[in-house]
């Protein structure tokens, strides 16, 4: 009986490994089929992405540029604001302020992404178009800002953890030398927690790359090799959604593009997550 249960429980735990294998397997097989017909170089370095229109072209660079624009926009919003929030929470705020601010950040983190997409379309885009009239209805800036807002709570919370891991003895040492709170924070505490902050930034970028709904709604569906944030673009995730919305039969080349783009997306986020985890494991060792 014990032995049967042990194996049953093991099977449950093994499902997680199977999931990973299935993801890698599904993406690899269909991507392999895709590369049978489209040379890998054309895919990775091509500058036109028109797999659903004639003449068909399968260069992923426009999608990568689109994703990059969103990541840049999100980073501009989330990294400085998240770090500043974390510094306020960890270095200045009293216990009572923390008790108010932290739950609000948790709520913001728990709001579904579709709500942020709605927010981008109905709030951020109109403001942008009033400020800069040349802004297109669908544009990278609005989606980028909103993706930044989405990952902000995560950045703030991880940076807060990193800052609070710095022992108070270091702060005492710096204050006792006649430093101001800014000097203690900016020149001692932040440098001492830099690896943790860096890990938070990497995770935020990974999340921004994988974000789907806000960019699908607000950034448009125009694969566009541009770095102008006011234009309509398409990200990798938005393309995947676009294909799945249409009626694309399995086995066709357009169906396989979905997996090829998914494989690129998966690899990028996986690498970033591995880097972030490696950094975090290292900094956790430092002060223990």
């Amino acid at each position: 009986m014990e032995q049967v249960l042990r194996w049953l429980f093991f099977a449950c735990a093994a499902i997680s490994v199977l999931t990973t294998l299935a993801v890698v397997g599904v993406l690899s097989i269909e991507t392999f089929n895709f590369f049978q017909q489209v040379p890998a170089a054309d895919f990775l370095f091509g500058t036109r992405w028109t797999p659903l229109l004639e003449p068909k072209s399968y260069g992923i660079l426009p999608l990568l540029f689109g994703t990059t624009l969103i990541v840049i926009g999100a980073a501009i919003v989330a990294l400085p604001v998240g770090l500043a929030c974390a510094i306020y929470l960890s270095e200045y705020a009293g216990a009572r302020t923390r008790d108010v601010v932290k739950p609000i950040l948790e709520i913001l983190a728990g709001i579904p992404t579709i709500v942020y997409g709605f927010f981008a379309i109905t709030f951020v885009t109109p403001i942008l178009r009033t400020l800069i009239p040349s802004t297109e209805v669908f544009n990278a800036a609005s989606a980028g800002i909103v993706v930044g807002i989405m990952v902000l709570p995560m950045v703030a919370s991880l940076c807060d953890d990193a800052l609070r891991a710095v022992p108070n003895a270091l702060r005492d040492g710096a204050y006792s030398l006649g430093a101001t709170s800014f000097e203690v924070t900016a020149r001692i505490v932040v440098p001492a927690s830099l690896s943790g902050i860096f890990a938070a930034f990497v995770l935020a970028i990974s999340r921004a790359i994988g974000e789907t709904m806000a960019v699908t709604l607000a950034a448009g569906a125009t694969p566009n090799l541009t770095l102008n944030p006011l234009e309509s673009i398409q990200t990798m995730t938005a393309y995947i959604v676009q294909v799945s919305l249409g009626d694309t039969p399995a086995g066709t080349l357009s169906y396989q593009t979905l997996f090829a783009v998914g494989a690129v997306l998966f690899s990028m986020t996986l690498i970033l997550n591995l880097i972030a985890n490696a950094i975090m494991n290292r900094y956790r060792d430092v002060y223990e």
Partner: protein
Amino acid sequence: MTPQAQLLKKRHRISAAFKLFCLSVTCLAVSILGILILEVTLLGLPWLNADFLTSFPSRFPEKAGILAGLAGTLWLVTLTAAIAIPIGVLAAVYLEEYAKPGRVATLITINIANLAGVPSIVYGILGLAIFVRFLGLERSVLAGAMTMSLLILPVIIIASREAIKAVPSSLRQVAFALGATRWQVTRDHVLPQAMPGILTGVILALSRAIGETAPLIMIGALTYIAFVPEGPMDEFTALPIQIYNWTSRPQEAFHELASAGIIVLLLVLLIMNATAVWIRYRGSKNKFK
């Protein structure tokens, strides 16, 4: 004033300015929640009435409602809970109570940590390839629930492991000393103690499943559905899908409908999270110390 005193004054000014900057940025971040809720409420509240809750989607905004989405979400979350909770909790039991520390356990742990960071749309691709196409489940609630289960399993496993880890090992030793088997110890002592923590994690994971949109779109849940699913093999739509559909239309009236839908979605999430807080509060009151 001496140069030293002047410099000191300047340093104090920089320091005060920096503190003010951090404070204002934090206020700004916190106020986003207020802006969001205010906007959604102003747009959506007028539409929120009994008709809205009991009508099916329609081309005419005045007649459109959220019933199909609400019912679909309830189906989805129930099936997801039925699949993901036992698997997730038992996997956590295996990793905490049964697995010998070693390569296999480490591999599974690392694997779960990495799965937690995989974008949700990738789970959608997986669901599309495996459940919808390969297993031939089509666009059913079951396919959706299986996809969502894979998505939230890492969250459930991680939270359950934390809860199980927090159970003092003295409790296990007492039970083992009385001659109980490992499963008896787990079932009668460890799991009841860990239950509040596990439930909190489970509710948070299910909240995530309720809010996720992308994986459902991938498996094809974005269709015109004017009925309530009656079984796990029926087609379905869900709250976030319905919101997506309305938001992606250009007409202002549909945006207002989307706001009303968002209010319903956020209320459902609020109820679930309040439950989690309540369980955590009750759990902290009568706990083995």
